[in-house]
């Protein structure tokens, strides 16, 4: 499909995402986030496999024996003066990647997005998820030499609850009723209600552990594989190898410099000219350029990200079912996949579950591109020949081009769409879900359940189209409690069908996340499907092979 060398990774059923916070950033209220989380927690409990001690580290992959030494420069797609080394405030790829470099969490995601012990050597819950005991790894020291202790963990997690911290994931921590140190190596966390997914939450990059009492985060003092040598927001950061890193033999590189290049062609040029060795956010149409270069490769990951057409049910004419259906027939999905994403995408069927997800319902007939059918439906909806604005923005990746293609096919069906492009600045708060016809972009969620709960449940604040379907809501609630995998799978199939047929959301394709790298950068085959840069965790895993 997309990347010959790196076959698409099988995604774990718990398709979780550290980027949950990304959504938080988009304006989710404290209360709503909490609600969402509660739901997700129940689901997680049923998947099992969350309790455990150190399972050993993931395999090294296929790219040979790691070597020590070397220095690379990495360019992310954005950097600005609001860059921060405060894990609680991270908001862009470059922030997350730096936080993964300089800090560790109690837990971390593996390739299947299952939380594995990190700074916590061991974690357990004695009462089904209300009281948790985390036992810390011994002999871990911060970059300034101070040994890791339970007090640091208490501080690091507790600070999210203080509104003046400005944490991006504050809502996730309001469920913590109490956090206390039991001696220097154990931390006990008590929740308001049971939540088996606490280790998942603690694996997100915002939950990294910092020394107790840290006020000035610009030094980047953590326990991570790299020490921060220089950090100037919006300019660059330099991390040098932490020789005292607790994970034996890691990291491999001597030094990593991180910069931001917002202009995509410039980013690609910098990679190809050898000025940087790793970039993220490569457009599909640039991927070929990188592939053509003998010294470079792309890594494309399908993590379930999608840009969707939002048709509000509470506004005209998007409330008319025939109109909604017509619009779905107007997506020339093959063309979108080929022309906009250069096949770095997967055709979707107007529901948010990608084929790699275990709950994916493959028997649902693919909705074709059928302008005649659409014309008929539009006539039925009484909007034939109407003129409608559709809002697109660079903020929802690919939405402008999708809008153009949609406009073309709509014309064939006798519908006149006018595109209203708005700046990405402020798009999520001012435009998203505010217009009858617009675009959204949804990042992958940790689990299918979270995804459906956040974006399709009637009561969900991010129910993009304002879709209300009792049957769906019931299925969703039931599925969380359903112990039988087969039955549950059927429930998911039903939900996907409901969305596919009735929801005011059109999902033409799932978009791959593409990184570009210098081929001498090895160890990049590990895939954590949370986003680019190997789910932001590349620093610890890659090495430089000059040969």
């Amino acid at each position, binding site marked *: 499909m997309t990347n010959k060398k790196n076959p698409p990774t099988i995604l774990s059923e718990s398709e979780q995402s550290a980027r949950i916070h990304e959504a938080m950033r988009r304006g989710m209220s404290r209360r709503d986030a909490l609600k969402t989380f509660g739901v997700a927690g129940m689901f997680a409990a049923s998947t099992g496999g969350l309790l455990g001690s150190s399972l050993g580290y993931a395999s090294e992959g296929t790219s040979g024996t790691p070597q020590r030494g070397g220095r690379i420069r990495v360019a992310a797609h954005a950097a600005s003066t609001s860059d921060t080394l405060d894990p609680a405030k991270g908001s862009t790829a470059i922030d997350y990647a730096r936080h993964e470099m300089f800090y560790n969490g109690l837990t971390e995601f593996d390739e299947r997005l299952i939380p594995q012990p990190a700074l916590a050597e061991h974690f357990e819950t004695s009462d089904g998820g209300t009281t948790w005991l985390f036992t810390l790894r011994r002999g871990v020291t911060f970059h300034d030499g101070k040994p890791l202790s339970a007090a640091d963990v208490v501080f690091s997690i507790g600070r999210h609850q203080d509104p003046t911290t400005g944490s991006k994931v504050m809502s996730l921590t309001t469920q913590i009723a109490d956090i206390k140190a039991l001696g220097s190596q154990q931390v006990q966390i008590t929740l308001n209600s049971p939540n088996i997914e606490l280790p998942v939450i603690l694996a997100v990059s915002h939950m990294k552990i910092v020394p107790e009492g840290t006020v000035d985060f610009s030094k980047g003092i953590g326990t991570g594989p790299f020490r921060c040598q220089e950090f100037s927001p919006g300019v660059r950061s330099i991390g040098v190898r932490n020789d005292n890193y607790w994970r034996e033999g890691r990291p491999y590189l001597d030094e990593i410099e991180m910069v931001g290049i917002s202009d995509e062609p410039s980013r690609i040029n910098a990679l190809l000219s050898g000025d940087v060795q790793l970039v993220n956010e490569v457009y599909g*149409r640039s991927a070929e*350029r990188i592939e053509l270069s003998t010294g470079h490769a792309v890594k494309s990951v399908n993590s379930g990200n999608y840009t969707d057409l939002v048709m509000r049910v509470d506004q005209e004419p998007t409330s008319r079912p025939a109109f909604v259906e017509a619009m779905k027939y107007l997506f020339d999905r093959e063309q979108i996949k080929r*022309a906009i994403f250069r096949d770095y995408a997967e055709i979707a069927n107007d529901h948010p579950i990608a084929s790699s997800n275990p709950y994916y319902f493959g028997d649902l007939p693919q909705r074709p591109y059928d302008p005649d059918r659409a014309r008929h439906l539009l006539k039925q909806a009484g909007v034939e020949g109407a003129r409608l604005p559709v809002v697109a923005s660079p903020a929802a990746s690919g939405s402008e*081009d999708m809008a153009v293609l949609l406009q073309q096919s709509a014309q064939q069906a006798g519908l006149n769409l006018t595109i209203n492009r708005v700046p990405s600045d402020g798009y999520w708060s001012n435009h998203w879900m505010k217009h009858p016809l617009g675009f959204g972009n949804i990042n992958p969620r940790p689990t299918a359940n979270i995804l459906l709960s956040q974006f399709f449940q009637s009561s969900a604040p991010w129910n993009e189209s304002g879709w209300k379907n009792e049957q769906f809501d019931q299925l969703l609630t039931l599925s969380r409690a359903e112990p039988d995998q087969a039955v549950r799978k059927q429930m998911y199939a039903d939900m996907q069908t409901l969305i596919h047929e009735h929801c005011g959301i059109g999902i033409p394709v799932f978009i791959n996340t593409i990184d570009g790298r210098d081929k001498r950068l090895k160890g990049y085959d590990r895939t954590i499907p949370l986003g680019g840069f190997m789910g932001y965790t590349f620093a610890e895993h890659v090495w430089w092979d000059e040969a």
Partner: protein
Amino acid sequence: MNNSILDSRRPSSEPESRVSAARRHVKPLNLTRWIGATLVIFWLLVAIFGPMLAPHPVGALVADDMYSGASAAFPLGTDYLGRDMLSRILHGARYTVGLALIAAVLSSLIGASLGMLAALAPRWLDESVSRLNDALISIPSKMLALVMVSAFGASIPLLIVTAVISYAPGAFRISRSLAANIATLEYVQVARTRGEGKLYIAAVEVLPNMFHPVLTDMGMRFVFIVLLLSGMSFLGLGVQPPMADLGSLVRENIGGLSQGALAVIGPALAIGTLTIGANLLIDSLSANRGQQGE
């Protein structure tokens, strides 16, 4: 040489004081004017009739190839989505030429009227308008555009307003000094001693004589605005898709630069020929002609 003219002669045939063109330089100069005028008229025609001549709809994906080269079906190749570049340029020219023209006309209109007002108005008014003008002129245009877009969102009126705010102050400056010069001329004094009102003096005595230099200045402003617009496309400002002005066409296809795609070269050449043409025309119209070598 005496500047006055012999009574019996018509100045048009006045040899000593008025004649300036040397024979061997007449031709190249006419040539540049001819080239300039041709280019400008060409683009004006494209702006007016281009969309009608476009072989394909501006947003239609008509080719399977992206960034394809010239072919019989697509004389200027295709763009990053496989759309026909010729059609896109034919449409885009209307936006670039139209926007720049409107903005240039508005800049000059506003600049000239304020300039005239300042030149003829009482000192305090002149002083305050001039200060405000200095203040506006000192704000970098791209930065202004950025803030304006953040505040109001991108739209065609906003593009025009931004360009006008950026370029009207320059027009004001020139108009003001022109008007101030004309106001000291004797025919204006005559009108004043005739008891004419300020408005009459401004509209009838001063304005007609500013027309030509203001027009030349407007031409320069037009060129600057075309370039500003193409610069603004970098910051994500432009007309609504599927339309695109020439600058945005270059910008959206810049990924094809490495393979030398016509999709980048085409619109870049379009901007180039448009601005060079306008410049040549203005130059040749305002320049003194010819020079005698030693």
